[in-house]
């Protein structure tokens, strides 16, 4: 598993560290592949379980790399952000696939039954969050990234603060406002698809 691909990533990271911006571009699909594989492997071995997930995935990839003592702190934050971005892509692709799957076919006959159940928690449709998040990023880029790190990357407030190089307090405040903004955005009729 830790074969040629691992080496390639290592080399690209080294190049990037030495200032080769193009190396980052080349690195991105590699990270995507690695994360994707890790995600699949994780699901395959966990089946019903639920121990290793996002942070563990990124950490796994990251531990392997940081183990090589190749990345300095600045790049590490950068690298984490890159991972999260890729993670977001994987999740959204999966969600879109699943969503389209849910929209047709007899098995998925839409049932609109109103059921007296325990109160549902406000919950999120990934694709809708993703769309709204794109719009948030246009209004306030940093808040967009806070949500990206926390929601798509599963990072804690502290980790997010480290990656974005702001204080945890700022992240916490951004998070509050961003959530309210996104909820409002998602419940306004114009944003429905």
């Amino acid at each position, binding site marked *: 598993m830790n074969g040629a691909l691992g080496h390639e990533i290592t080399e690209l990271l080294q190049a990037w560290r030495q200032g080769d911006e193009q190396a980052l571009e080349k690195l991105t699909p590699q990270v995507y592949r690695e994360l994707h594989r890790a995600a699949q492997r994780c699901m395959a071995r*966990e089946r019903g379980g639920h121990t290793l997930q996002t942070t563990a995935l990124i950490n796994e990839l990251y531990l392997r790399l940081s183990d090589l003592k190749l990345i300095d702190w600045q790049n590490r934050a950068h690298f984490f952000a890159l991972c999260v971005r890729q993670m977001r892509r994987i999740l959204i692709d999966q969600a879109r696939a699943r969503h389209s799957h849910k929209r047709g076919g007899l098995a998925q006959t839409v049932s609109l039954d109103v059921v007296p159940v325990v109160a549902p928690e406000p919950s999120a449709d990934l694709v809708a969050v993703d769309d709204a998040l794109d719009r948030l990023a246009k209004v306030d880029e940093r808040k967009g990234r806070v949500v990206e790190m926390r929601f798509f990357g599963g990072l804690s407030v502290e980790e997010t603060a480290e990656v974005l190089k702001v204080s945890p307090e700022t992240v916490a405040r951004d998070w509050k406002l961003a959530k309210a903004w996104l909820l409002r955005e*998602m419940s306004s009729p114009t944003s429905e698809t």
Partner: protein
Amino acid sequence: MKPERWNKIESIFHKALDAEEGRRGAVIEESCAGDEDLRREVESLLAQHKNAGDFIETPAFAAEAGSVRRPPVSLAAQTRANLAGSLFGQYRIVEEIGVGGMGVVYKAEDTKLGRPAALKFLPQDLATDRLALERFRREARSASALNHPNICTIYDIVEEPGRVFIAMEYLEGQTLASCISGRALGTDRITKFGIAIAEALAAAHAKGVVHRDIKPGNIFVTMTGLVKVLDFGVAKLLRTGDELTATNLTKTDGVSGTLPYMSPEQLRGQEVDARSDIYSLGVVLYEMSTGRRPYPGNRQSELIDAILNRPAPPPRVINSGLPLKLEEIILKCLEKDPEDRYQTAKEIAVDLRRMSTPSATIKPVAARGTKLKRKAVPFAATGAVSLGLAAWWFFSPVPQPRVTGSTQITQDGRLKCCMVTDGSRIYFDLNLAYQMGDGYPILAQVSMVGGESSAIPKLVRDPAILDISPDRSQLLLRIADPGDTPFWALPLPTGSPRRIGDLVGHDASWSPDGGQLVFAKGSDLYLARADGTEPQLLVAVKGFPCFPRFSPDGTRVRFTVGPTTSNPGSSWEIGANGSSLHQLLVGWHDTANKCCGRWTPDGRYYVFWSDGDIFALRESGGFFRRASAVPSQLTSGALRFETGLLPSADGRKVFVQGGQSRSELVRYDAGSKQFIPFLSGVWATWAAFSRDGKWVAYSTVPDGTLWRSRVDGGERLQLTYGPVGGAGAESPSWSPDGTRIAYTAAVPGKRKIFLIPAEGGSPEKLLPEDVEEDDPVWSADGTRLAFARDMHGGNPDIQIVDLKTRQASTLPGSKGLIGPRWSPDGRYLAAVTVDVKKLVLYDFKTQKWSDWVTDPDTLAYPSWTGDSRYVYYDHLNADHPSCRRVMVGVNHPEDIFSLQGLRRYLDSGGSWAGMAPDNSRLFTRDLSTHEIYALDVDFP
């Protein structure tokens, strides 16, 4: 928006939040200084903030791991915010409890009677239509007169200016639809629920009320297991509202609403009576019994045709464990002509009840269990003989533990994990969906001796069981989100969960005296007091520690370090005082994953999982001996075991979770870009079709029996019976005249071709030679068969047999080729090189081979289209598998669709793919299931 404006909004937003609740209005007032737009903006954000709750607090990966929960989108968002606390008649709204096509449902309090109620508001258009309203009143009134324990009581119909709503009994639980979600229920529950629904119908019918919309979505199972039929008499009216919305939300070709449950007479628009409800109950019983509705088809027209004209496939075809009597009851409900059905619901209740009394039971569970044991369970069935499957005996001075028998504990088929036991019951997490990474876990329990699993009311969102306290009074839980989440203690049998201090982590367990907790957080292990105070680092691990468990004497902790890309999962031990950290099982199966070990209660054995099997390590072999170095293997064989395992409290059993193979055929639908079940209701693979496209032959999973039926599932006939010519039937192929089927079956050591009449009969071996044969295909005129010879040996080639003389000859130039596929028009024969990287084509006209397509990865299961112009095949790239096709005369394939995300069923030949008569590609989807088994282990 200008940045300054946004900054202003932001600063007022936080200022208001930082202010005390009572001062907020004033703070906003002051800060906005008369700017109304600004004020509205801030207030709307604050309102959202207040309602935000857990919104996106769960990282997307976890949300994704479950199904994507759609938010109660803006449907009446405005109304929602306004209604809480307001009074309608005597009802004060407490909170919204659901949103649907027809509007919103609220939990309310009846201020006069002091009881909770559910309020269902009618859609506006209905509420203002005088005629409809009058009809609604009439029906609802008669329905409200129904008083039956299995009917959700209607308290009141309230009309307020512009608003009409029904007040009814408030229930907590789930719909039958979510109980079923695609899987058959156990016979006990089918009977219990069936009787309850039939009784409810009988009571309503006696008062002249017909439901008209009986379906799992209208049947509620409360937390205490009571069945309640909802919306009596009003369902149809409400449904009108639903359908309006349904058309907006579903694709036009999708079947919306409740068509699948409609009786033929209802579909025709004829007057319906009680017997229409009986038909719908039949569909519900069918769905409970098989997990599916009687008729497949994804188009409305197909479904309507099936309901009106076709007989339902017998449910026992899908679920062979079903009692025959239950099948008879269901099929009688589903008769097309109301006169042929049960005439009253009471009769159904009576028949179901009679069936469930022990004397009349056909012991479905036992029958199913026996079958499983015979076919799949790898360990000795009943304790008499171990069949050589169980314990591996090593030549060793210490006697080895061995498995003497096994019992299947659960019957639900679903993914489960995280077992703990209180000595009489097993508590575990049950995944409501069947696919990996899909669905949320719920807490469930089952008796240690087996039986129906039952859910434990969900008090913590997405709970994952970690441990049970030594006094068995509480479960240790966490929320199954990625990363570290809070720990909860849930009192047994019921009670409110409480957090354990402010600890967070991803795994934990109690010490044997219950005084301490060992937990994993990030890459560290900690010890804390049981109340969560005084956490202190035990060890920092390079990697992902999980599954920490104390030794029974409390002196040591063993844990697993999760697998990484470079290292398999490994087991470790550390003293509870932090001393002597070391890895276990070093030098034993070093490349295998090891996980999730637990001690037997007496501490003499450490039982653990490794790569799909369960092992036991003896801790101490005697006074002068250290622990045995070689673990004993407890399981091996057909079932693949999951990581969870649990030694019983009495030390005589080990509970394990094993998987069982099942699959279904799916067709890729180019229009919707989805894989749609094909030939519903059979665990099948290897489908082949007659030339006229009306008949199909297939092999069942996992036993590999050959069957044939009409393409709609009718006239099903089992063709082969093991073992000779019947075991592991594969590669069926119809003779062009549709009278015979060629297929391969395993004979000792070899795969050979057999011929069998399509109407049934004895299989006949095609050729006597002792050489491997595969992939039989007929010539267009039916006089010859081509097949691959010796495909796993050193000299594969393609043979052509004259069926009259039974003389086989080598197709010239076919050395090194396998997988022959004769084109339907007989002109070409496509084949694959033995390295499965090249597709080649033989032209019978020119008698020449030509290279067709080269695939850098793997090229599998080529199939011709009916017009002999294209060959479709699987392009099996590890990361991006896809279906490709290539045209005769062209050397470049086209990518048609991706195969990513399709969970394919794997058999000895990889994962089969083929072609339906309409030239859509077919695959086999893996639907394997998982159960808990108890192994009786003799631990010497």
